């Protein structure tokens, strides 16, 4: 056993010195390989982080959102519908929400305006999301104006800026009192945007949704699970699009690896002949080449994954933010919680190391079965 280990150590020693002898070629390969792993790992880590982050935030949202439909479109919800719902078994809370959008010409961006009666805001105070604070250069105590539906301008004092923990969904949010909201957006008393219901037992959600549809046939219930599913597929779709765009780069890498491996130089072939003539077996040459491929692919994998980890979790994935987050103007500054998923690492390993190994093994095997007497001729 120790003899076997000693032999492997000698082979690794020889492999390392071989790699150093062809520094430029191998460093080039390592660089391209690392870059590919870095890009793929960044997309995977970032999309996964986005999905789980969105999931965590939405876990706290109500189980059912009830919207009124008129002519197939979302319409305002009369306040009396709260009474019409009445007492449904399993529902622990029901309330009307007021929310809408405001287009800011100055920054060419949409804000989400929401009434927040529980925040204790006066009619001249607002709480804003971190994205708005960034684009409007606002701090606590500064003032922000909104044009109301009837052309008047109302100015509000920024009382608070929402923390960055929830920035993924609160970047463009403006919270204000109910009165201020109705005055600015022009929704009369007695109407809400929608109604939210909290349900104690998650397994009863669809049953309750069915009951609501019967009681209020002009409404549609939207379940939290459906929203989660939509987020999931949106992020998966974006990941897919990114991967398709990257497919060209991956293909280029495979061609590069194939070319590198199949194009074993005359010098390398001669070396294999010498090694066989001085007493190396085909198996020894294959072992040596296995270590060479292993050292390159594992180094590239680890360096690429580490760089992607730092890029996503410490650099906020600056390279992929626009395409993966998808916010129109107010990109959230989002710091995902670092994690490593074994399955994801294994998938990435399979899709990067395996093709390289396959691309290189056959030409190497063909070279390693060279007759040892070729060096005599």
């Amino acid at each position: 056993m120790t003899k076997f280990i000693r032999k492997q150590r000698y082979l690794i020693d020889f492999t390392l010195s071989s790699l150093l002898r062809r520094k430029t070629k191998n460093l080039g390969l390592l660089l391209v390989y690392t870059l590919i792993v870095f890009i793929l790992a960044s997309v995977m880590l970032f999309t996964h982080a986005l999905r789980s982050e969105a999931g965590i935030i939405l876990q706290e949202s109500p189980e059912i959102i009830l919207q009124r439909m008129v002519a197939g479109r979302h319409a305002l919800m009369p306040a009396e519908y709260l009474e019409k719902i009445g007492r449904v078994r399993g529902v622990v809370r029901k309330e009307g929400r007021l929310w809408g959008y405001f287009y800011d010409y100055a920054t060419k961006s949409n804000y989400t305006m929401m009434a927040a009666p529980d925040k204790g805001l006066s009619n001249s105070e607002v709480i804003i999301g971190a994205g708005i604070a960034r684009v409007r250069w606002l701090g606590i105590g500064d003032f922000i104006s909104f044009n109301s539906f009837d052309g008047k301008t109302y100015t509000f004092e920024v009382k608070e800026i929402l923390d960055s923990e929830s920035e993924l969904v609160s970047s463009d949010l403006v919270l204000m009192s109910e009165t201020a909201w109705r005055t600015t957006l022009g929704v009369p008393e007695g109407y809400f945007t929608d109604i939210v219901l909290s349900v104690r037992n998650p397994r009863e959600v669809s049953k309750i949704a069915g009951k609501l549809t019967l009681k209020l046939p002009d409404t549609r219930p939207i379940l939290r699970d459906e929203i989660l599913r939509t987020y999931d597929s949106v992020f998966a779709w974006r990941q897919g699009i990114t991967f398709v765009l990257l497919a060209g780069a991956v293909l280029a890498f495979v061609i590069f690896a194939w070319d590198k491996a199949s194009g074993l130089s005359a010098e390398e072939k001669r070396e294999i002949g010498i090694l066989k003539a001085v007493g190396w077996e085909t198996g020894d040459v294959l072992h040596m080449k296995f270590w060479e491929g292993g050292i390159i692919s594992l180094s590239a994998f680890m360096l690429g994954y580490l760089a992607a980890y730092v890029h996503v979790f410490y650099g906020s994935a600056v390279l992929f933010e626009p395409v993966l987050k998808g916010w129109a103007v107010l990109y959230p500054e989002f710091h995902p919680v670092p994690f490593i998923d074994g399955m994801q690492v294994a998938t990435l390993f399979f899709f990067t190391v395996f093709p390289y190994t396959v691309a290189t093994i056959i030409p190497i095997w063909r070279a390693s079965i060279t007759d040892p007497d070729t060096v005599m001729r």
Partner: protein
Amino acid sequence: MLIELNDIRKVFNQGKHNEFSAIRGISLQIEPNKVTCLKGASGSGKTTLLSMIGCLSRPTSGRITLGEQNISGLPERFLTDIRRHTFGFIFQKFNLIQGLSVLENIMLPAYPLGTPHEALMDYAHSLLGHFGLSRLSTSPVEWLSGGEAQRVAICRAMINDPEILIADEPTANLDSKLSREFMGLVDDLHQSGKTVLITSHDPIVFDSPVINRVVEMCDGQVLKDEPCY
């Protein structure tokens, strides 16, 4: 260890239009602890014969026995094992691996054996010392002169302490002074108990007093086989 060749034939591209018989029925006995020279012009078949004796290739027909063992029909793995333990090779163009140091080149044949590192280093250094190469141990081999490169090749051939040394046209790339020096080294090896088998068409080699026997070849056959006194 006695090497015995019995009606050895080697045919290249057998069955094809360019079929060529390199060795045509050679029978020989190569005695242990002697320096034997296979002499002949280029294309006479001496290198082909040498590569079969050294387990680098197999004969098309005939039998080669090494001591008691018939090696002519062995699969590659067994031939490699015999080659690495029994033979040391000194090639015409030295065949050192560029970019590696002198010491690394010398130790290469021992890597697959898994010899303990310290013992291997000690032996390699003692060989370097014996052949006057100690100061060059860390130099890359491409810095060496022809004579130095050949001495490195001899050290490499000796690293697994083989019983038989095989040298293919060893003086082809050396001037006459270095060729005579080489024959001096062959004499040392002979004195230390090694069997040496050389191919050459250089008179410095086959007329050297170090040679015990000259086998002259022509067109894949033995023309003359005579001991030297």
